[in-house]
């Protein structure tokens, strides 16, 4: 068991969560809670695989995955923004629909066999940095590097640009945004789409890079829900989201890898000799999500900050105070 190898693999696993979490942050910042992340990720993973099977191009597959999940997200957008339905219930429904659709449309994909996968790169110079180089910049999938770029991009967009200001406005104070001539509901559609597309990208990252293949519902195994938990932990901030995602990815890898060797630090490895204790290890990511949520929620209560003020509330001009 080599810590560097675990952390290196953890970055790749964390990238899945990073895409999904940042996507959900954008959607929630715009005032729309979308609980369908898991379903959208599955649609992304499934359509990416289908595209690769049909065309052999992983790049086209990424695009198709983002479009497919983005389109699915618009079902939620229409129901909550235009029809003003409860966002919690609609998101759950979207999740069920996404899971079911991907199971039916992905039938037979698990037998797909060897596929064109996304390339991995080692960055010259940067990979020479001691410790960090091997972890961050050696033989990582291209998706991991896209993830690195997404973090500062998302932060800068939200906090330092004019469209980002509009995004925050429609999530915090839509009436004021409307008065400034911002089309609140149209922009919300856009950000729900972006959130969906990033969830689709997260799904494609699984099926084309991190654990290649299609394993029906087990492909995502709850990552979408963990991402929603991470949004709360991240306090709707992409940088904190990245920290949470990578920590999670590392934990996930550690759990997989700890069951391999016969000794850990010269002790007999209990998870090797008593493999059934691995079921308790498998619980850890989910228990850790609950733990992280408790921390995030307490912090939010203490600092009196928290979700965007208009989160969950449909905007109708001239109605209510928000």
């Amino acid at each position, binding site marked *: 068991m080599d810590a560097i190898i675990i952390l290196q693999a953890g970055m790749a696993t964390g990238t899945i969560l990073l895409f999904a979490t940042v996507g959900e942050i954008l959607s929630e910042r715009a005032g729309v809670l979308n*609980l369908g992340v898991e*379903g959208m990720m599955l649609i992304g993973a499934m359509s990416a695989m289908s595209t690769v099977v049909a065309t052999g191009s992983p790049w086209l597959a990424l695009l198709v995955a983002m479009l497919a999940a983005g389109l699915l997200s618009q*079902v939620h957008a*229409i*129901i909550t923004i235009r*029809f*003003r*339905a*409860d966002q*919690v*219930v*609609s998101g*759950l*429904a*979207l*999740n*069920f*629909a*996404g*899971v*079911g*659709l*991907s*199971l*039916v*449309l*992905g*039938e*037979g994909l698990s037998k797909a066999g060897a596929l064109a996968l996304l390339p991995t790169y080692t960055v010259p110079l940067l990979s020479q940095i001691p410790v960090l180089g091997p972890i961050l910049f050696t033989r990582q999938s291209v998706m991991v590097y896209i993830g690195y770029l997404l973090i500062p991009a998302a932060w800068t967009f939200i906090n330092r640009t004019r469209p980002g200001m509009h995004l925050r406005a429609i999530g915090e104070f839509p009436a004021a945004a409307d008065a400034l001539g911002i089309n609140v509901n149209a922009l919300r559609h856009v950000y729900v789409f972006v959130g969906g597309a990033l969830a689709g990208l997260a799904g494609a990252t699984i099926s084309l890079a991190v654990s290649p293949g299609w394993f*029906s519902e087990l492909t995502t195994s*709850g990552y979408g*829900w*963990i991402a*929603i*938990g991470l949004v*709360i932990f991240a306090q709707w901030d992409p940088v904190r989201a990245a920290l949470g995602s990578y920590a999670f990815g590392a934990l996930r890898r550690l759990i997989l890898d700890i069951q391999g060797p016969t000794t850990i630090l010269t002790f007999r490895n209990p998870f090797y000799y*008593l493999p*059934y*204790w691995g*079921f*308790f290890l*498998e*619980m850890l990511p*989910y*228990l850790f*999500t*609950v733990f992280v*949520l*408790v921390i995030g*929620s*307490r912090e*939010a*209560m203490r600092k009196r900050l928290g979700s965007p003020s208009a989160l969950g509330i449909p905007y*109708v*001009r*001239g*109605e209510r105070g928000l």
Partner: protein
Amino acid sequence: MSQSEPTIHRPGWRFPLEIRLEPRGAAPPWLGWAVTLGAVIVGLLLGAVVLSAAGGDPWRSYAYMVKAAFGEVGVISDTLVKATPLILLASGLCLAFTMKLWNIGAEGQFFLGAFGASAVVLTPMLPPETSPWLMIPAVIAMGMLAGSLWGFLPGYLKAKFNVNEIITTLMLNYVAVNWNNFFIFAVWTEGGFQMSRRFPQTAWLPRLTDYAAQYPQLRGLTLHLGLLIAIVAAVVMWWVIYRSRWGYEVRLTGDNPRAARYAGINIARNTVLVLMVSGALAGLAGVSEIAGVVHRLQGAISPGYGFSAIIVAWLAKLNPLAVIPVSILFGALIQAGREIQPSGVPKMLQGIILVCLIASDLLMHYRVRIVRRSQEG
């Protein structure tokens, strides 16, 4: 409060008609069920579109499913067996959803219920020759206790730290599955197989087929006492939600938490209690499945009952009495879905129906008008 929006003049051509939503007062009672029926039909039609896109013949599939679920007495009995856990799970969810507590963890509470029931038999807390009159109530009590514990955790975290119950209940599902797997694989395994040994007959819920000696026509019918328990539970839950004082508190909190707080209702305590009751019923569903159908603890005891029950509760408009017929329909979907390819069809249909149902809610609250765009401005 008028919905008409002031139109701001923007240059350029605009479509001359627009869709306007006008809030309606109380909708007539028949409308709700008509809209629900319409949503289910639209959902099935959309499902048919997807099925034919995936290369299947949707109408043949649907006809086959109806036959596989209601075609003869034996399969009707099987359908009702599938409906039994749904009735129990969805009745509990009706209570939680009425308070706007989104318990997505019924699946895990179901697994814990099965675990609790198995613990009585396999530990064993009671010897196998115990009279069924003691054994079955003990199994039920332990199952409900374990299920309610699985509801208590998210309830406590919600009440104490305002932790989002959607995520915690869902995460506990995965924990519950692994918990059960540990006992199935490591502790109660029978000869290395991934299942426990069979329960003694004293822990079985009586089935119709058990009376085949007196009534030969009952031979092979797997319907068990769980259905009766489930129907009683649904009626009790209906009374609790819509007739009891506590149910009134729960409904008021769900409709208007601020008013509930001013009325002096202890919301934190009710949050914990509601999730515990919901979990206990889910646990009871697990007991019913394990003591009525499977007769042993194993991994595959649920085709996603806990998630289907969410849709059932919503279709039934959070009314436990309506849960009974809706559960039978969903039991049919699950029963028929076992034999149909691709295997994801029942899940997909459930998801699409739920989406249509939620979209159709619009028609309950608003009148949809298509009007000519006003030209002033």
